[in-house]
C-alpha cells in the first residue's frame, strides 16, 4: 500500500503542472454546462461535418495552439518570448497568397508550393530573430520587437495587392472541411503539428537541451551543448509554426489582411504558455500543459461569446479571468496550497493511525 501510494504521489508530482490549466478548464466547462446542459454535445450538420461547442473550440484554437507549441520552446530555451509571431503569421499568409496567385489556384502543386514558400520565409525571419537573440544576446522581447513593428509592412510588400482576396475551392477544402471527412481540417492540421512536436521530443534531444540551456547555459556549454544553435533552432521552429498558423487563417478567410491577421496573437500565446504553468523565465516546460493552456484560453473566449458579451467589452472580461488564473498559479498561492495540503494529509495520517480511535478527542495531540 505504501509503495502504491508513493507511486501515485510521484505520478501526481510529475504531472502536477497539468492541473494548472486543467482546473480552470474544467471549471469553465462546468460553468457552461450549468448555463447550457448541451454544451458538450457534438452533432453532424447538414453538410456532413461535425459541429457543436467542443468542435468550435478545437477548431478556433488551432492557430493559437500551433503558435503556442513553438512559443513554449522559445520560452524554455531563451527565457524570453517572441512577440513577432502575429506579424510572422501575416508574412507567412502573404507569401502563401502571393505564390497561390501566381499559379493555378486549384492545383495541388501550386498550393503545396505556396505553403512551402510561406514556411521558407517565416523560418528565415525566425532565424533572424534567433540570431539577434543567440549571437547578439539581445533580449528576446526587444529582438522580436523589430519584426513586431515592421512585419506587417513586409507582409504587405510581399502580397502587393491591397485587398488580397482569392477564391479557391481546393484551399477552402483544405482549410475548412475536406469532403467526406467530418472533422474540420484545421483540427487535423493541428493534430499533425502536434504529432510532429511529439516526434521531435521523442526522437531528438531538443527537449533535454532546450531545458538544460534555459536552466543553466554555462553548465550546458561545459557539457558540449551548443546553446547558440539551440536558441536559433527554437526560433526557426517557431517561425515554421507561424507559417502554418498564417496559412490556416488566410485560407479560412480566403483573404490576407496585413493589419488584422492574427493581431495580438503573441499576447494570447504568451498567456497560454503561462496558463499552462510554464515559467516565462525559461527552463523546464511541458508542451501538453501549454496546449491545455491554449484550449483553456479558447474556452474562455467561447464562454464569453456564449454569454453574449459585447465585442468591445470582451477583452476586459478576459482580463478579469486571467488575473484570477495567474494569481492562482503564482508561487505564493502554490505554496499556500501545498501547505494546506500537507496539513490536511498529516491530519488524515493521524486519523488513520492505529490506536487513535475515530471517536477519541484529539486533546493531547499538537
Amino acid at each position, binding site marked *: 500500500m505504501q509503495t502504491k501510494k508513493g507511486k501515485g504521489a510521484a505520478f501526481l508530482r510529475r504531472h502536477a503542472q497539468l492541473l494548472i490549466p486543467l482546473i480552470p478548464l474544467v471549471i469553465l466547462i462546468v460553468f457552461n454546462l450549468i448555463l447550457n446542459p448541451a454544451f458538450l454535445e457534438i452533432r453532424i450538420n447538414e453538410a456532413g461535418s461535425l459541429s457543436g461547442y467542443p468542435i468550435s473550440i478545437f477548431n478556433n484554437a488551432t492557430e493559437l495552439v500551433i503558435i503556442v507549441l513553438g512559443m513554449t520552446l522559445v520560452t524554455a530555451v531563451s527565457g524570453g518570448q517572441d512577440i513577432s509571431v502575429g506579424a510572422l503569421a501575416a508574412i507567412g499568409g502573404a507569401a502563401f497568397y502571393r505564390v497561390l496567385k501566381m499559379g493555378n489556384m486549384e492545383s495541388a502543386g501550386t498550393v503545396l508550393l505556396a505553403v512551402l514558400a510561406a514556411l521558407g520565409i517565416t523560418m528565415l525571419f525566425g532565424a533572424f530573430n534567433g540570431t539577434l537573440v543567440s549571437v547578439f544576446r539581445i533580449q528576446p522581447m526587444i529582438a522580436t520587437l523589430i519584426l513586431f513593428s515592421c512585419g506587417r509592412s513586409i507582409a504587405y510588400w510581399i502580397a502587393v495587392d491591397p485587398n488580397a482576396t482569392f477564391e479557391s475551392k481546393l484551399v477552402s477544402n483544405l482549410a475548412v472541411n475536406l469532403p467526406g471527412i467530418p472533422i474540420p481540417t484545421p483540427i487535423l492540421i493541428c493534430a499533425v503539428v502536434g504529432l510532429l512536436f511529439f516526434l521531435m521530443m521523442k526522437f531528438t*534531444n531538443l527537449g533535454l537541451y532546450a*531545458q538544460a540551456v534555459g536552466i543553466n547555459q554555462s553548465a550546458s556549454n561545459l557539457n558540449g551543448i551548443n546553446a547558440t544553435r539551440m536558441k536559433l533552432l527554437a526560433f526557426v521552429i517557431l517561425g515554421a509554426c507561424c507559417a502554418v498558423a498564417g496559412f490556416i487563417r488566410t485560407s479560412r478567410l480566403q483573404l490576407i489582411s496585413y493589419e488584422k491577421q492574427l493581431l495580438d496573437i503573441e499576447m494570447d500565446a504568451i498567456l497560454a504558455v503561462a496558463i499552462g504553468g510554464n515559467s516565462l523565465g525559461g527552463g523546464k516546460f511541458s508542451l501538453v500543459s501549454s496546449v491545455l493552456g491554449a484550449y483553456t484560453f479558447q474556452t474562455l473566449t467561447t464562454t464569453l461569446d456564449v454569454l453574449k458579451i459585447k465585442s468591445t467589452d470582451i477583452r476586459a472580461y478576459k482580463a478579469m479571468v486571467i488575473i484570477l488564473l495567474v494569481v492562482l498559479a503564482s508561487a505564493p498561492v502554490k505554496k499556500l496550497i501545498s501547505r494546506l495540503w500537507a496539513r490536511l494529509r498529516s491530519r488524515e495520517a493521524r486519523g488513520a493511525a492505529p490506536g487513535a480511535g475515530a471517536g477519541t478527542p484529539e486533546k493531547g495531540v499538537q
Partner: protein
Amino acid sequence: MENGIVLTMRGISISFPGVKALDRVDFTLRQGEIHALMGENGAGKSTLIKVLTGVYARDEGTIELDGVPGTVTIHSPQEAQKLGISTVYQEITLCPNLTVAENLYIGRQKGVSVPWKKMNRDAAALLDSLGIPARPRQMLSSCSLAVQQMVAIARAVDTQCKVLILDEPTSSLDEKEVEMLFKLMRDLKARGVGIIFVTHFLEQVYEVSDRITVLRNGQLVGEYETASLPQVELVSKMMGKELEGLSQVSASQDEEAEQAEVLYQAEGLSSSESKPFDFRIHKGEVNGFTGLLGSGRSECVRAIFAADRVTGGKVIMDGKVVRITKPIKAMKNGIGYLPEDRKRDGIIADLSVRENIILALQVMKGFFRPFSRKAAEAFADEYIKALDIKTASSDTPVGSLSGGNQQKVILARWLLTHPKYLILDEPTRGIDIGTKTEIQRLVLDLSREEGMSITFISSEIEEMLRTCSRLIVMRDRHIVGELKGSQLTQDQVMYTIAGGGNERAD
C-alpha cells in the same frame, strides 16, 4: 577604550545549522592602519565581516566602537553605516548607468529635488581630494573597474567613515590598477581611517598592510605585525600546519606512472583567462595544480577543457596533435571536467538526477540519438548505486540534493562517458567528510585499476598530497614549481607557494 583603537571585537561566536562558523574570535582595529584579514576558504573571514556589518547576528561576544558608549549591536548594514562602518564588496554594487556624482550621492540627499549643481561640485571636490581620476558627470560604466572600485570607496568613506572594509577589492584589477587602489588606501590611512583588507593575494598583503589577523576554521590563529611575519610562516598559519616535522610522505605514490607514456601534453596553452603554460599528464597518473585560491589553477584546467576561449598553444593527445577549441571536442577526445563552481557550471538544478547523469554522454552520442527512457534509467540507477548517491529517485530534481550528492551526480556524469583523462576541480569542496574520503578513494581506484589519468585540484593540501603523485605549484597566475616523490611534503609546497627556492618552471 584604549587610545587609537577604533574597533574591538571580543569572543565573537556564531553558529549555523551544523557548523560553528566563528568560535570566540577577537579582532582589533586601530586608527589609521591597514589590517589584513587572512585565511583560507571557509576560515570565517566573510562571516566576521558580516557580523560587523549587521548581516548576521552574533551568538556571543561583544563589539565596541570608538565614540559609542558600551557594547554595540548592529542589526543591519544601514545601521553599520550610521555607526561609521562602510563596506566595499568584491563586485561593484553601484549603478553603471548613472554618473559618477549620482553614484556618490544617490539615496543620500534629503527632500525630493536633487541639487544637481551642488552635487556635481561636491563630487568634483571629493574625487579631487582622493585623487580619483574620474569626472562627476561621467557615466560610471565608462570608468575602468579600478576607478569604479575607487568611486565605491569614495562613496563609503564620505559618510563619516571610521572603519572601511574592503572585501577582495583587487581580484579583478590589473597591476597598475592595484597600485592606484593602494595609493588611495594609503591616503585614507593617513586620514585616520581604519581599513580592514580582505584578500588572498599574499604579495599585496605585504605591500600595503600593517597588521595581519589570521583565521582558520572559524577560529583565531593570531594577530601579527606584517613586518615581523615571514611570508612562508603566514602560509603555514593559514593552512594550520607547523613548518617542521611534517615530512610524513603521502601514501605509496607509484613513481611508475612517470615512466608510463604521456597521455596529454600542452605546450604554451593559453586561454582568454590564463597565461601560456606547459603541462603534461601520463597514463594512469594522478597529478594536481596547487596554489592559493586565485593563483590561476582553475584557469589552467579550464583551458585544457576549452571551457574558456582557447587563444593559443599546441595540444598532443595520445601522440597526435589535436585541436581542442570547444568543450565537445575535449569530450570527444576523452577528457572529462568537473568544474569548480558546482552551482554555476555543474548541475542543471531543475532537471532530474537521471537527466543530469546522462547529459554529457547524451551530448556525445548526438542530437538525433536520444537514449530511451529505459536506457537512461539503467545508466542512472547504475551510478546512483555505484557512487551511493542519496536521492529519493532518479526523477528527483538534482537541485534538491545535498551538496555532496550533487557533486557525485556530476562525477557520475563524467564517469559514464568513460574518459581517458578526468579533471576534477575542487570535487570535495563544501561536502561532508565521509563523501570526501569516498571521492578520494574513487580517484585512486580509477587511476590504479582503470588506468585513468586524473588532474585533481583541491584547496586542502593534505588531500592533494594524499592523492597526487606530482604537484604543479602556481602563484599569481604562473607555474612556479613542480614537486614529486620525496618533495611532496607540506613544507615544500608552502615554501614553493611563498616563493622560497624551488626551481622555476619557465
